[in-house]
């Protein structure tokens, strides 16, 4: 970043955006234009109306991004809304992440809840389902979905975010990947090379190329499975 200056909002403040090195919002901040920086840290409440491009984005509070996000790392420990697309190499969600459009990453990991309005596309997708997770479609190489933690942890998260849909389930139309392992997933179609269906799943159709395994758990419903 050639400018090398920082933007800090402590308390209440607003900025029209621009190019910065380090941007920190402690308190409540509005950024009304496009923002480009090395690191963006939000420790309170932030609303960003433009597009954001940053190496690292950390949200430990609540943030409302109205545009697109691009960057290398995005770590959500709180709650984040994104109105556009997310194109970030590594996404780590430990809170509640809502993306209105598509999310494209090399690695997407989630220990919390999320909603992706479009396609969740990542080389490696690791989801620990603590709260409700939703995506229209999921595609990638490795897709691993497991029920997260104990019910105690899920209750704790519930107490932190009242009003959060808490049933720990991943809901999606289609899942397509090379290696797919699923728990607590409701999907219309699952397609993959090697597919394993674990407990708590409700899948209409499984289509597989090499191998298909179904956990002997009674709480699995797979209406149809076929080798393609």
């Amino acid at each position, binding site marked *: 970043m050639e400018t090398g200056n920082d933007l800090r909002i402590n308390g209440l403040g607003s900025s029209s955006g621009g190019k910065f090195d380090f941007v920190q919002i402690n308190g409540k901040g509005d950024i009304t234009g496009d923002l480009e920086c090395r690191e963006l840290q939000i420790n309170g409440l932030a609303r960003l109306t433009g597009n954001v491009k940053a190496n690292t984005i950390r949200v430990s509070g609540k943030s409302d991004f109205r545009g697109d996000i691009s960057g290398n790392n995005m770590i959500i420990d709180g709650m984040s809304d994104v109105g556009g697309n997310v194109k970030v190499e590594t996404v780590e969600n430990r809170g509640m992440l809502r993306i209105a459009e598509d999310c*494209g*990453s090399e690695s997407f990991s989630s220990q919390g809840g999320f909603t992706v309005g479009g396609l969740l*596309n*990542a*080389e490696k997708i690791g989801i620990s389902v603590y709260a409700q997770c939703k995506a229209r*479609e999921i*595609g*990638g*190489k*490795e897709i691993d979905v497991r029920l997260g933690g104990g019910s105690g942890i899920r209750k704790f998260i519930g107490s932190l975010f009242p009003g959060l849909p808490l049933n720990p389930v991943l809901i999606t*139309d*289609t899942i*397509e*990947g*090379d290696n797919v392992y699923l728990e607590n997933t409701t999907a*219309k*179609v699952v*397609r*993959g*090379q090697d597919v394993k269906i674990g407990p708590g799943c409700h899948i*209409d*159709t499984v*289509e597989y190329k090499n191998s298909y395994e179904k956990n002997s758990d009674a709480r699995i419903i797979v209406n149809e499975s076929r080798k*393609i």
Partner: protein
Amino acid sequence: MENDLISKKELLDLTGISYGQLYRWKRKLLIPEEWFIRKSTFTGQETFFPRDMILSRIEKIKNMKDDASLDELAEMLSPNPADVNISGEALKSSGVVSTVAIALFDEIAGEQDTFSFTSILHIYLLDKLLQSGEISGEEGKVLLKTLDENFSKLEGKNCDIIFIRKLGASSCILVSAPNQIFFDTSTKVAGRLNVTSTIEELKTKLANAGIG
């Protein structure tokens, strides 16, 4: 129309690529978003692709991915202009475009010291139409003027360049694609080129000539 489309399943079968690869190439913008056509079928949502375009694209990616990184490939396949600036000498000796076409370009735009990608593209489009005998040198000048004045408005978008003739008079049209366009019966389409695929072709040629 149905025959022009290929389902994702059939595509993977035919080309031997995996879901992981397809999604990676989509992420890297090697396959344009608008080629993913989502349709409801009796087995649920399915994705279809324009058959010829996707098959040739995947063939291309498979052939080139050993020599170039995915990012380089994306650069090569994108409709955006490449970052190229070469001298007239280098352009002539590369053999990518004919000297006749360069001379015509010089006549319209004046003598150039260096050629940007956009200029080379204009010359290349002209050259292709000249070589195929579809247009004459005079019409080539019209083409260059049309491109010079309007191409920037459609840059980065898919577009076609069309040459029509009626009663001996010719005219050049730059139109965004995909688009259907119809003419009266006495109008003849003398030549038509898709600019986006020409850009791809040119980028490959320049890369092979060691430029860009």
